[in-house]
């Protein structure tokens, strides 16, 4: 069955009409989510006012009918946060697809081989350092080019942890995916223990640390977006160009070898690329769970396993889901968005699984 699907996608892809409809639909859903995300918040900005503010920004001669603070709320507080949600959701959705294909494991998500644990250690180190070493607190909020220490260390930690996992897993010669998974699990456990140690000694920074671990989009500014966006979007597009390899992964090594393709070198590149995307997303928002695991499954249930559509639609769907989840989190007030994704997403996912019972739900 699986092999048939993969081979079919090697021969003839989705028709142009269907691809347009599916991707177009996902784009529309994302746009609706973006508009809702910018339109809704704890301060009410009416639709006509919002349109006026945007028009004025575009240089149209519109008289001000809104409070002087409204443009700041829209453009400096809400919009960067909504864009961050879209970016992070897209990265996690796309990376989730790739890891599920790589590991041929329905439980795989972008964090499965150490990204989250490494990024957490980096960020938590950055957050707790000023508490543990008061001298560092003098420049509280120091940022380099608008990028905080937590973001930099999270990004480095995510990449570093996966590199470590890859190196350790290769010690036994050619690394198979089971070895990689188990190594990832072991390294993650080790790093998580270090995070726990820091948690215990974090004192007043505990709330910040827990907030980061649960994932939050608050406080994202344009400078961070400008750095993360090329990494996430560039990485996702690059992954999309490798759809053939991704489809072949579903066949397994032997079948691919029978078709004259050696997947081992291709696989390592895909792991690093997906990790790069994940690390950038995590650096921006913390370890938001659920999106990277569930969005690929949902999209696969809806449109099938061909990566030509699965990958872009998962990116768009992850973006829309996270923007809407963050909107809900903001309305409730101070609930980390990762909690919302799980609270809303998990029951919905269960319902879908139930509905799709009998259909193939695994890659």
């Amino acid at each position: 069955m699986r092999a048939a699907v993969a081979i079919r996608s090697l021969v003839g892809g989705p028709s142009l009409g269907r691809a347009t409809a599916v991707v177009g639909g996902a784009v529309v859903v994302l746009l609706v989510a973006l508009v809702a995300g910018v339109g809704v918040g704890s301060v009410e900005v009416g639709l006509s006012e919002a349109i006026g503010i945007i028009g004025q920004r575009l240089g149209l001669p519109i008289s001000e009918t809104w409070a002087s603070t409204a443009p700041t709320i829209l453009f400096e507080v809400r919009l960067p946060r909504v864009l961050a949600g879209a970016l992070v959701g897209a990265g996690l959705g796309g990376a989730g697809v790739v890891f599920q294909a790589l590991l041929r494991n329905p439980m795989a998500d972008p964090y499965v081989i150490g990204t989250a644990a490494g990024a957490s250690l980096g960020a938590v180190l950055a957050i707790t350092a000023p508490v543990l070493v008061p001298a560092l607190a003098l420049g509280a909020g120091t940022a380099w080019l608008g990028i905080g220490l937590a973001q930099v260390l999270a990004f480095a930690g995510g990449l570093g942890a996966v590199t470590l996992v890859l190196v350790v897993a290769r010690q036994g010669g050619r690394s198979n995916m089971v070895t990689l998974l188990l190594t990832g699990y072991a390294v993650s456990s080790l790093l998580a223990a270090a995070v726990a140690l820091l948690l215990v000694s974090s004192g007043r920074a505990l709330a910040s640390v827990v907030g980061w671990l649960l994932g939050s989009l608050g406080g994202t500014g344009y400078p961070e977006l400008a750095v993360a966006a090329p990494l996430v979007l560039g990485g996702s597009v690059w992954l999309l160009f490798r759809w053939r390899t991704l489809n072949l992964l579903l066949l397994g090594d032997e079948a691919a070898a029978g078709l004259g393709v050696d997947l081992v070198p291709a696989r390592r590149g895909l792991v690093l690329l997906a990790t790069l995307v994940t690390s950038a997303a995590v650096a921006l928002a913390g370890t938001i769970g659920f999106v990277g695991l569930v969005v690929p499954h949902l999209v696969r249930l809806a449109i099938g396993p061909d990566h030509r559509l699965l990958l872009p639609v998962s990116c768009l769907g992850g973006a829309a889901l996270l923007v809407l989840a963050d909107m809900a989190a903001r309305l409730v007030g101070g609930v980390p968005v990762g909690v919302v994704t799980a609270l809303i997403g998990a029951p919905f996912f269960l319902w879908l699984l139930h509905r799709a019972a009998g259909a193939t739900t695994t890659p």
Partner: protein
Amino acid sequence: MPARRIRAFAPLLLILAVACQPTSPSLSPPTSTAPSAAAYPQTLTDDAGREVLLAAEPERIVSLAPSSTEMVCALDACDRLVGVTDADDYPAEVADIPDVVIVAVVDIELVVEADPDLILAAGNELTSSAVITELTDLGYPVMVLYPESLDEVLENIELIGEAINARDQAAALTAEMENRIQAVTEAVAGATRPRTFYEVGVFEGAIYTAGEDSFLASVITVAGGDPITGDPLTTSIALEDLLVADPELILLGDAANDPSVTPEAVSARQGWGAISAVQNGQVLVMLADAVITRPGPRIVEGLEALARAIQPDRFD
């Protein structure tokens, strides 16, 4: 640790200051001899060592901590507050001011809507540093206040006085507070200092008290007690360490909000029966907890309540 007087280029000096500064009950007289009219624009250094530029006299103040709210109101500037926290309960008129902090989370949108020209944040992650960064990036003057001793509460009041052009009120208020502090200091002078344990709370087996070198510890010291302190970061103390420290007096601050905390309940706790204070009936409920643990202008009331509990013989 008067961080205001330490420049940011000397972090080593700061470490030394933290390490070597004893919590001394003596008070330095105010050094301010400047003219009472503030000139704007002015730059002030806050408790986090940050330079805060105030372009003009602040007319719209957002306070992110109840203690700062009380300071502003004590300087007759309550009417300038445009945003406070949902934990604010004093003075009564703050009930009408919009809340911008809900359940300890700062709602950035509500802060922006309040359109402040001065934001008073709390240090040591009471206001998270991410929020401080975000508000600073949005262009608001954010002043971080974190008094770590009784002296620094007075310094904070003077700092706010300078910031909002209320120096005379600040000088009058701190002078009155110093008189009351002086009176307590004299009353307890020479008295034997009981080993005092102030219970902030007990959760899931973790015992929270005054942290080492903390504001609360300094108040207990001035009130004539010898504070038993917990970890400087978490402010918790292990039961074993508490038993070794063997307090002669236990003050139940948490009893002010939790009626289940009583001297009887304390003596029934596993292991607490061995403590001298428990055996000698020296476990007291501190109903004044709100003014003892809040580093605002009413701290002198808290100090007096503490002194009466710790040194009852010295007060009629």
